Structures are given as C-alpha cells and as structure tokens.
C-alpha cells in the first residue's frame, strides 16, 4: 500500500494486525523538565526580587520584565518546536510559521517602550484633558502647540 510516506516522524499507514512498537518518550520528558525548570526559575525570581519589600531588588522592574519575557519566549520555543513538532517539518514550513510570528517580538518591544513613553509623556496626563476639554480653552502652563489649537477651537463654540 502506497500510503503517506512522509519523513521519519510522520504517519505510516496502518496495516491491520501490525506489531506495536515500543514507546519512545524520552525526549518528551526532557522537554517537560526544561519547561518545569524555566517556570520554577521565573516564579523563584519573582519571589527573590520582592524579598526586600521592593527596596533591595536583584533587578530593576524593567529589567525583570525583559527577563520574564525572554524566559517565556524560551518556553514558547520548546512548546512549538518540540511538542507541536514544528522542528520536524520542512524548513520552508518552519519559516512560514515562525517568520510570521516575529512580528510579535516587535509588538512586545512596542509594548515596553511605548507603554513607558505614554506614562512619562506629559500630554496624556489627565489634567491636560481636563484643562482643554472642561474649561473650554487652554490656560496657563501648557507647553505644546496641539493643546493650544484644541483650546482655540473650543473657545469658538
């Protein structure tokens, strides 16, 4: 029977009454221990970094985030390439899947940099909106042209 003759890992067609091979599960448990170890490191680090009540930290809050994100990407690699067998697929298929998801690394960088930029940027302070939209015009202390324009528009109404 011709059947699917794929590479070493893929399906071979079932022949009724054929002998069942012995399981080969060593690699599965190896990946399991790696995932467990990385998770333990993450949780352990979260505990250690907070021991001093936030004063004596092993790593800054931002550094800690990058640390956790990196370890998570390591876990994701093992799940996708081992458990989901992406590592056993053809090179071009590996590219098809993984190149698409590299966008996510860019998004994660955006999340960190843009998120902090939004926090530190004066423009998004609540009192800015209050000043412009509640009082109807921009008053003292504004230092950007955008706010001034909005204020001017408001006052025409």
């Amino acid at each position, binding site marked *: 029977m011709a059947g699917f003759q794929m590479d070493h890992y893929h399906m071979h067609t079932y022949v009724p009454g054929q002998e069942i091979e012995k399981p080969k599960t060593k690699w599965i448990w190896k990946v399991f221990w790696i995932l467990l170890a990385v998770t333990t490191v993450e949780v352990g680090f979260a505990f250690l970094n907070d021991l001093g009540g936030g004063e004596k930290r092993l790593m800054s809050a931002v550094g800690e985030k990058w640390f956790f994100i990196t370890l998570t990407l390591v876990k994701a690699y093992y799940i996708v390439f081992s458990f989901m067998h992406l590592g056993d697929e*053809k090179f071009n298929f590996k590219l098809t899947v993984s190149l698409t998801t590299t966008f996510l690394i860019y998004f994660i960088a955006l999340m960190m940099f843009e998120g902090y930029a939004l926090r530190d940027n004066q423009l998004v302070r609540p009192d800015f909106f209050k000043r412009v939209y509640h009082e109807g015009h921009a008053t003292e202390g504004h230092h950007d042209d955008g706010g001034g324009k909005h204020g001017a528009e408001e006052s025409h109404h």
Partner: protein
Amino acid sequence: MAHTASVPSEKGVWGGGVAPFNVSYGKMMMWFFLISDAFTFSSLLISYGVMRNKAENGYWPAPDEVFNHFPFYDGHIKLAFVSLMTFILIMSSVTMVLAVEAGHRFDKKAVVKWMIWTIIGGFAFLGSQAWEWYHFISGTDAGRATGLLLADGSEYIVHGANMHYNEYGAQLFANFFFFITGFHGSHVFSGVVLNIIVLGMVLRGVMEKRGHYEMVEKVGLYWHFVDLVWVFVFTFFYLI
C-alpha cells in the same frame, strides 16, 4: 477512497500536489488558524501590557497580591495557585504529546489512556480558573472604602471586582483580567470538547479505518497552543 494514490511530490516543496511542505491539508490549516489566533491573543496581552506600563506606579494592582489564595490554606502565598495551574496545563500538554506519540505507533490503548488524562487535566484547569475567578469577584472581607456615603449614612465599601468596580485598583485591570483569562478559558473548554470528540472517534476505531491517527495530532496542535497561550498569560498577567 480518500487515501489511495497519495504520492507526495518529491520535486520540491512549492509544487503543491498531495501535500505541500509534506504537511497534510488539515494540519496546515490548523497551523494557519493557530497563527491567526496567536495574533488575537497577542493583541490582547500587548494592549494589557501597554496600559499596565502606562499606569502610574501604585495605581495598578500588583497581580501577585491580588491572586494570593490557595485552597485549604488560610494565609496568603503569592503566585502559588497560578503556578499550580501552569503545572496542570504543562502536564496535560505532556499527556497530549504522549497520546500523539502513541498514535504514531498505532497503540490504540495508549492513545485512549493519554487522551483521558489530557481531558482530566483540562477539567482540572477549568476548575482552578473558576476558583480563581470566584476569589477575584468576591474579594476580601475588608474591601476598599470609597469615601461615598450610602442613604443610611454608612460608607460605601467595595468588595471584589467586576466590570464596573475593582476593589484592588485600576478598573482596566479587572476588565482585562476577565476578558483575557475568559477568552483563554473558552479556548481550554473548546479544546476539552474537541478532545472528547476525538477520543470518541479513537474508541470507535475510526482512526484505524482511516489508516492514521492524524486527527489526534491536529487536536494535539490545538491543545498545545492553548498551553502556549497560558504560558504567555502567566508571564504577562501574573509575573510582570
């Protein structure tokens, strides 16, 4: 019959034919669905991260102080219960790979055994999540004073969180929590349902009639993806 004359093209991966990239149609479509689903989850988690980084320090609740309960234990240990949930899901992922591996060897008994363990793991995770939600919704006994007075002159105290108020701090935190973990939980639930359906097919001997256990592999892909998403939820929601 569907499985005759399947000669894969050896000429090149772009040639089409029976199985481009040597991946069957169903499996490839499952991969493409998972990629799109990955982007859905990523957009949720990344928007969470942006709002979390944007929030002033102290205003955003520290997740490890919110979710610090553990069953049958009165004290507070941070991260313990979520770590347990992570362990349950990784473990059920392992049993799923074992089921797929057994399928490659046409070991029906082992497939059934490992799929049942996977389903049990899925239900255990869903139960844990329900427990976690219950504690988040009901909140602490002390609650948080709002400074508002009720009709009888007593102060209005908020307990727990929902879509309208959050005892622990930022309202967005509660909304993101319910949406992201709820969306993930619904994925787990549909994964369990798919596992049960495929287990039924295995038991009826459908896979042997087809000549392969690829259906187990496909549902396995989905299940690992659910585990993968949880790994990210764990990091982005509870650790960061």
